[in-house]
């Protein structure tokens, strides 16, 4: 085991996979500037700065993937993905199906997002749910350095197009990482970060931390919370979520993205359709507001569900309603 940051874990995954498979290439605006060591070790042919044009970056990844390469394209920030949307949604997501299975698109598109940089809604927009909704794509959004590394490696080896979202607020977070190069984390498996019996918290990315903090605080009140980190938003590990909800009977879903048609809606719907009989209380969604992200630090932070709100929701679910919890939750 080695200690490293999320940023280092991503870099290591890229390096190892480029080592592992000569078909892996890395491209994007500034990737060759940023990963100069990779250029040195794998050559300028495999690590390519691109013109500033997200549509052709993504389209080129799609074409290269169909042509036999395994491209990783760094699209920088999630709000730039709309420029790439046609290539990702209409080409990568559909052309395998449309062609009757003749082609595959083994590629990864990376992008950062989330609060933490105070630069506003055109750099911070958690739009991962849009890609979960689109057919033919897979979507990852890890929370720990080990998962960033293991999932990115697995994504690069996957035969399908994968969107890999990087929560900006986690970039410098440290954690233990398994150093073996063949250590992959399969797509589609949620991680139970903490076991519990009274309430299930489902989250991903930065807000997993809020849930874990909340769970710790709840312990003092004799409330035992299970925390599930989805990691893989598509394929979604329905079984782990449902099994937990069936045990606890209570569900809180937490994420930074806004709520309407978001992942929390999907998880809540899952419980309401497939674990209804086990539910003992209303499902709770704690999400970012239906608003663009604000730049100002205080507003930016106010848009992210925090541990306090998770605690309040859990207390209300497990122990019943109170004025205080209502006030805290009204915020979300």
């Amino acid at each position, binding site marked *: 085991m080695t200690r490293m940051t999320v940023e280092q874990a991503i870099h290591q995954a890229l390096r190892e996979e480029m080592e592992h498979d000569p*078909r892996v*290439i890395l491209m994007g605006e500034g990737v060759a500037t940023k990963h100069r060591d990779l250029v040195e070790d794998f050559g300028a*042919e495999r690590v*390519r700065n*691109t*013109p500033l*044009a997200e*549509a*052709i970056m*993504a*389209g*080129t*990844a*799609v*074409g*290269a*993937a*169909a*042509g*036999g*390469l395994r*491209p990783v394209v760094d699209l920088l920030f999630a709000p730039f993905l709309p420029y790439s949307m*046609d*290539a990702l949604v*209409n*080409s990568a997501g559909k*052309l*395998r*199906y*449309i*062609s*009757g*299975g*003749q*082609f*595959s*698109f*083994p590629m990864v598109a990376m992008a950062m997002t989330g609060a933490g940089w105070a630069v506003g809604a055109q750099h911070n927009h958690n739009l991962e749910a849009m890609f979960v909704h689109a*057919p*033919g794509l*897979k979507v990852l959004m890890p929370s720990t350095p080990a998962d960033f590394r293991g999932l990115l490696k697995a994504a690069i080896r996957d*035969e*399908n197009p994968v969107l890999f979202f990087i929560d900006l607020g986690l970039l410098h977070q440290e954690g233990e990482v398994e150093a073996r190069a063949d250590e992959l984390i399969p797509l589609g498996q949620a991680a139970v970060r903490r076991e519990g019996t009274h309430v299930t918290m489902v989250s991903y990315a930065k807000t997993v931390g809020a849930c874990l903090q909340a769970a710790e605080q709840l312990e003092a009140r004799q409330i035992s919370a299970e925390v599930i980190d989805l990691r893989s938003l598509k394929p979604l590990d329905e079984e782990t979520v449902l099994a937990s909800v069936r045990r606890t009977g209570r569900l809180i879903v937490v994420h930074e993205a806004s709520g309407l048609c978001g992942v929390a809606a999907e998880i809540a719907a899952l419980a309401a359709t497939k674990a209804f009989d086990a539910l003992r209380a209303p499902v709770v969604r704690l999400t970012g507001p239906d608003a663009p992200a604000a730049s100002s630090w205080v507003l930016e932070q106010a848009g992210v569900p925090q541990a306090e709100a998770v605690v309040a929701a859990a207390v209300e679910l497990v122990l019943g309603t109170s004025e205080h919890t209502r006030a805290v939750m009204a915020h979300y």
Partner: protein
Amino acid sequence: MNVSEHTEPVADHHGVPGPTHESATPEARLSSLETMMLIRAYEEQLVELQRGGAPGTCTSVGQEACAVGVIGALDERDRILTNHRSAGHLIARGADPGRMMAEVLGRTDGYCGGRSGSLHIASRELGVVLTSTIVGGELSMAPGMALAQKMGRGEPGGIVAVFFGDGAACEGIFHESLNLAVQWQLPLLFVCENNQWQAFVHRLETMPDRAIADWAHSHGLPTRSVDGNAVEEVYAAAARAVAEIRVTGSPQFLELVTYRQRGHFEPDDQSYVDPDELVAWRRRDPIQGYREHLLESGLIDPEGLAAMERRVRERIEAAAAFAQASAWPAPDRLTDHVYA
């Protein structure tokens, strides 16, 4: 008619074929004619089927010389990306009209098992890959496919040809694609079939008259504009570009000036089309012109032509019978092929 001033202009023959490329043997020329006729007959058959209730299609009637000329200049190593108006490219590449028609009708024997329909037929085995009906989709994927070729993931020496329309040149992705191909020096032939129409809008409503060649030229890649209704001119220009791309590894651009003789998507009454323009271009029909040329030059006689027509008709009739006899896909296979 536009001819390029950016490289040596290719003579403008208004429908009469230009100078024959040396390598075009008599057989090749006869075969070009027959293939153009096959494309025409195939698409006319689709129009017939549509009248009977089959899904509509975008025919390439009037543009057959573009497909036959360019595809004829490619070989097996090469890969082709195309768009919604692709029947000519597929047939010129040797696709089976029966399997194509089955695809249009949504049947299991179609090239894509009925999932594509007429607009995105691809055939990996033929090297016709990544057909997109999103205008510009083919342009967005072409540099990547060419990069894969360049990095040794295709057949050695293979290049990529991407077909698109004048409308696609209005999409920003056109420029992004050209710029990337130039910057990365990709073995990519851009083929713009400038058929004057963009669905229900004449291209002169959307761009300056000489825009396509001017835009391409501004990206700094060798650019030729030729008469897209003259199959041998198209072939000559394409063959030269292909040969140069194989040597240099760098992209080139070919504008084929032609005309969409039928509507955008069947059925289409073309009420919005200037009848004079339409008539003028029908007079320059690529098949009619080439047929007369080959008759005049004695390469074929009226009997040979009649036999050719018969062969074509029989193939298309057989194709239609095959397609109509093909089974519908089973509804429970709906979600096959979403993921690899």
